[in-house]
């Protein structure tokens, strides 16, 4: 087996222009329409072992409805075309008809494995436009919740990644630990997924009484579980054989293709928005950015496993430092008044009515907010024309952009490794298709 670093280190340093030219000329991406695919075999010497094969859109390892059109030569993958859009529901169009208060209910359905991150990006963008400062407690609650969400998302990745490579036991263990996180989410937000918890102006509700207890118990037992995962997969020769040196990408390629998150970090490039362009209060907590070396499937797996450990560190610091105070901004133009006030105060009733019928108006302007989601840079671009709903709301989904690395990761590899590579990119199709 050739090790990944041999291939990487033998290359000389290229300029960005050379990388772009090489990637564009590599022919890894299959550009073939449905009609052309049907007539692919016509007038061609069919003995050259080439064929087009479809994987998905209902293949278990495609994590939803990703369809891959692959051109094979024997068992080797030559060109790949990710065919997407099966889950497209026009959520960016929907957003134009929803008020800013209703906005999070829409974006939370994009990345359903990490819903709080889309809510966060949306809320940060709206708050930037409104120019409101959210209370400290709200910031820390947001950090606590998104870090837990990162853990649940990575645990889901470990489960499905294990399953894709035949470690079916891992699937059960991963789901089991993720369930613990979701149980906490249910306690805090009322829902296991699609929380609509992080909203412009703060969060929807304060943490319930005694929220730390169950959480600390969970944080105490999770390291043992992670060690078991290590035994089960990390050190296991079959696991290493199937992942090491498979689906290799270099830093320059990843940057040119717009890849972010674990894919970029697996190449040894430490880029994490939490550290490099801090938002919320990430500059007040201690954590390490996990990077890989070889940019292969194993590194992407190991990064996510270790990011769970780092997220646990952040969660512990959030529990320790959780400040008292308000969980949302007390500006009655943005946040609905407390239920009790409505019976006493005419003004509160008016505000309540105005916010839930018309919504609040957001000053004219455009802004781009970004957060580090478990899959990479999640951006939200909002253009406001001064009305109560956005003129345009665009989500820059990390999975959507990361999918472009797939043909390059698969090129020249075996069809049997395709599943491992797709799994390591960890695309969430709800966010890809939006």
């Amino acid at each position, binding site marked *: 087996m050739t090790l990944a670093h041999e291939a990487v280190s033998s290359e000389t340093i290229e300029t*960005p222009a050379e990388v*772009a*030219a090489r990637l564009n000329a590599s022919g890894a991406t299959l550009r073939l329409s449905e009609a052309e695919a049907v007539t692919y075999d016509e007038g061609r010497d069919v003995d050259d072992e080439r064929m087009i094969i479809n994987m998905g859109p209902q293949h278990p390892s495609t994590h939803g409805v990703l369809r891959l059109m692959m051109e094979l030569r024997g068992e080797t993958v030559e060109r790949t075309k990710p065919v997407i859009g099966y889950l497209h529901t026009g959520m960016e*169009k929907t957003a134009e008809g929803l008020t800013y208060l209703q906005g999070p209910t829409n974006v939370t359905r994009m990345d359903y494995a990490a819903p709080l991150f889309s809510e966060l990006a949306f809320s940060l963008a709206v708050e930037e436009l409104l120019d409101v400062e959210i209370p400290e407690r709200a910031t820390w609650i947001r950090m606590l919740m998104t870090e837990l969400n990162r853990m649940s998302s990575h645990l889901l990745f470990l489960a499905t990644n294990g399953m894709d490579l035949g470690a079916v036991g891992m699937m059960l263990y991963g789901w089991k630990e993720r369930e613990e996180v979701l149980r906490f989410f249910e306690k805090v937000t009322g829902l296991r997924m699609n929380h609509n918890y992080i909203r412009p102006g703060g969060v929807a509700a304060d943490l319930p009484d005694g929220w730390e207890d169950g959480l600390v118990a969970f944080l105490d037992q999770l390291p043992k579980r992670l060690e078991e995962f290590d035994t089960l997969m990390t050190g296991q020769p079959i696991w290493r054989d199937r992942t090491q040196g498979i689906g290799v990408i270099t830093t320059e390629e990843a940057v*040119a293709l*717009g890849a972010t998150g674990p894919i970029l970090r697996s190449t040894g490039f430490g880029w994490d928005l939490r550290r490099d362009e801090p938002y919320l209060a990430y500059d007040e907590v201690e954590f390490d950015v996990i990077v890989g070396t070889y940019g292969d499937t194993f590194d992407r797996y190991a990064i996510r496993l270790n990011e769970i450990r780092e997220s646990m560190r952040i969660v512990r610091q959030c529990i320790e430092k959780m400040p008292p105070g308000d969980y949302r901004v007390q500006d009655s133009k943005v946040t609905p008044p407390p239920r009790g006030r409505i019976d006493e105060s005419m003004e509160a009733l008016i505000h309540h009515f105005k916010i839930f019928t018309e919504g609040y108006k957001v000053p*004219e302007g455009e802004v781009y907010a970004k957060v580090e989601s478990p899959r990479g840079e999640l951006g939200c671009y909002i253009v406001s024309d001064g009305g109560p709903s956005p003129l*345009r709301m665009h989500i820059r989904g990390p999975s959507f952009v990361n999918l472009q690395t797939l043909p390059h990761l698969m090129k020249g590899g075996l069809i049997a490794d395709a599943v491992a590579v797709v799994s390591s990119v960890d695309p969430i199709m709800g966010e890809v298709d939006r």
Partner: protein
Amino acid sequence: MSDVAEPVEEPTPEGVPELFGVPMTESRGQCVLHPDRDGYHALVSTLRDEGYLMCVDVTAVDYLGSGERSLPGDVLAERFEVVAQFLDHQQRRRLRVRVQVPAEEASVESITDLYPGAEALEREAYDMFGITFGDHPDLTRILMPEDWIGFPLRKDYDVGRIPVQFKGAAS
């Protein structure tokens, strides 16, 4: 004109700040450049050479029916706008580029030759807004079916509705 050493009034619009020879504005602390359509590709090429190695996002906005919007200098507002975001990892700086694209000729040059990662993003902008990107390697629909008619995110494209059906109701 006299030859007195007096500061000569610049004929350019009243002191519009420029960056890389392109009008620059600031939106909520974020740096925005406004090149014209012909200068877009050249500007992006300069940006890459300046260290903006990643094209983070390419999207579009349809301003049909919305009121006036403030643009610097002599930049003329058009119906569409192509918006691209760039990131320089080394210096930790970001730039946004907004290009005005007229409805009657909705096309700009593609930047996929500079940033291969812009391919899917430009395809999405084409799919949703019908803006064509010249010299794009594969300008086809990406989210909508191949035979779809119309461009869903345009403001004159209706959201559409499905009639609610009740069980046992007379048709």
